[in-house]
């Protein structure tokens, strides 16, 4: 397998990146050190600055096109702290509308999902199209001369765009185009989208995991690709898989093969490896059960037919954990998870997670996928709840001595080729975060 390594990986991190010392970060050379000040997890002013400098500036994930396949389909959700309607107009175009009435602010839609041509506000009955235009209201003649309906549409993000089915919005008029922003992350979005070799493309499975953590959101950005924690935190998951017949040594270096960590540009990161678990697309292991072997092999055959041997091998066998800055995780592991999270306090975040699967997956394959997903992932999975506990435990530590202390994120810093159990991926996130936080809002 080749082709997955970005240009940035040619030059070792400490030669490629200039050292820096700010109020938040110590990124030092000779000796190499990387420290993050713990006030970034507890401080209310830093949290408010993040809303303006990070979440109001970056491209933020909204949803997947498959969630709203038909004109009029909509999903109501929170994006970057704002309630939005993710919808499609009559011409099939994607729309993201603020779910807050231009009249006096009430929600114009009270359902969580559905199909509607109009959104009618329940407070005074103003009605909006799914382009966000104000269509009509009761007693139109009562408004003063000069009142124009076209001035009273629903607010919208500055830009909305999608890449291979993944839809993003930004509230920043100066933000660069989405494709430029995504930089080398596009390669991995392609690898994910290509899991559906024919037919309907990839599709979000109905059933959303909506949960929360009493910890700062940046801890989850770190944790989602932290290879160093997998063995100690997820021992029970690995033990269960081993007891089902999988070949698991219980040692990071033995179990995660061909492992690398990469800087994908603009703060996006990925770790790649071949992990010890099975993958519905398409790597069978004994823990999946003898009766599923044929189903998984059929999935592999479909990849070969659609993409040829070489790419099929890459799609089937390359496990990766990707972070698209600031708050989108796309983990392509024992299943494909889309995970996004947003803070509502320095010490609390809401997490939303979806399973992404080939749109034309049959029942047998879906069964393999759902079992594989839930064996590890989700707020009732055999692994994710322990991540919650680890992050909440860290947060309790920070809150016990607010504004004090530094966290060490230096692992693998002086390696030419860091692995997933090193911390290049986190340093890449933190450097981007620090740069944006240092800019004027």
């Amino acid at each position, binding site marked *: 397998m080749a082709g997955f390594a970005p240009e940035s990986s040619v030059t070792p991190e400490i030669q490629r990146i200039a050292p820096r010392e700010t109020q938040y970060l110590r990124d030092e050379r000779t000796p190499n050190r990387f420290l993050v000040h713990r006030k970034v997890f507890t401080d209310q002013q830093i949290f408010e600055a993040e809303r303006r400098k990070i979440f109001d500036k970056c491209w933020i994930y909204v949803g997947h096109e498959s969630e709203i396949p038909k004109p009029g389909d909509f999903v109501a959700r929170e994006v970057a702290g704002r309630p939005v309607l993710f919808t499609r107009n009559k011409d099939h175009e994607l729309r993201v509308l603020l779910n807050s009435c231009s009249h006096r602010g009430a929600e114009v839609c009270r359902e969580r999902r559905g199909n509607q041509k109009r959104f009618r506000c329940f407070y005074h009955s103003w009605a909006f199209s799914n382009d966000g235009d104000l269509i009509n209201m009761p007693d139109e003649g009562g408004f003063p001369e000069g009142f124009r309906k076209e001035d009273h549409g629903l607010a919208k993000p500055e830009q909305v765009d999608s890449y291979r089915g993944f839809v993003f919005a930004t509230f920043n008029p100066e933000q660069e185009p989405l494709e430029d922003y995504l930089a080398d992350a596009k390669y991995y979005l392609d690898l994910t989208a290509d899991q559906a070799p024919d037919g309907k493309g990839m599709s979000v499975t109905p059933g959303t995991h909506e949960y929360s953590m009493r910890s700062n959101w940046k801890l989850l950005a770190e944790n989602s690709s932290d290879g160093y924690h997998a063995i100690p935190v997820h021992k*029970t998951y690995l033990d269960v898989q081993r007891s089902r017949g999988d070949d698991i040594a219980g040692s990071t270096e033995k179990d995660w093969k061909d492992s690398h960590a990469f800087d994908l540009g603009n703060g996006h990161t990925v770790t790649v490896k071949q992990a010890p678990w099975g993958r519905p697309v398409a790597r069978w292991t004994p823990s999946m059960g003898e009766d599923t072997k044929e189903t998984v092999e059929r999935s592999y055959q479909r990849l070969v037919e659609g993409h040829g041997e070489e790419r099929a091998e890459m799609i089937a066998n390359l496990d990766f954990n990707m972070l698209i800055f600031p708050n989108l995780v796309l983990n392509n592991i024992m299943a494909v998870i889309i995970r996004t999270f947003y803070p509502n306090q320095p010490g609390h975040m809401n997490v939303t997670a979806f399973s992404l699967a080939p749109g034309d997956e049959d029942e047998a394959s879906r069964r393999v996928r759902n*079992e594989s997903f839930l064996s590890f992932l989700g707020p009732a999975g055999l692994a994710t709840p322990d991540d919650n506990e680890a992050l909440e435990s860290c947060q309790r530590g920070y809150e016990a001595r607010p504004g004090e202390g530094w966290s060490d994120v230096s692992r693998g810093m002086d390696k030419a080729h860091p692995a997933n159990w090193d911390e290049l991926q986190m340093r890449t996130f933190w450097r981007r975060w620090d740069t944006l936080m240092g800019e004027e809002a």
Partner: protein
Amino acid sequence: MSFRYAEEKKVSSEKFTRAEVEDFLYYEAQLLDAWKLEEWRDLFEEDGHYIVPSTDNPDGDLAMDLALIDDDHEGLRGRVQRLMSTYAHIENPRSRTRRIISNVRLWDHDNGELGVRCSVVVYRSRVPGTTSYVADVHYRLRKQGDSFGIAFKHAMLDHHTLRDVGGVLSIIL
């Protein structure tokens, strides 16, 4: 897989009394509250299922959609193995739980299984805080000796999300 009862005013079983079904449900609750999870697991039939649907999709397609928990016998075995370990970090120390079961309704299925529906409140206390889960629980039970085996347990949470009930669901309902 149909497990719903008909929306009739009055449903009951011709073969079983509410009291014997309640005895079984209270026994199951006692095992769970005492963390005797291996004994709880063994209440399930070989082809048994334990399902908790996602909170935004309570009536979803059991064959295709993503649930929170979707355990067959092998899944149950793994879940219990994990929860008995001190390495299940979120359950170390273990939650204290107390289940209250009420509103028990029963009806006979054509295949001889017994349909049960009940309301369950589970108080769950950890050192960092206490929460409670409320669920609408459906069973399909099979007569086994002087008791029952669980062929199907479907616990539908009465919460829109898990966000205000402890963040996650690391216990068995």
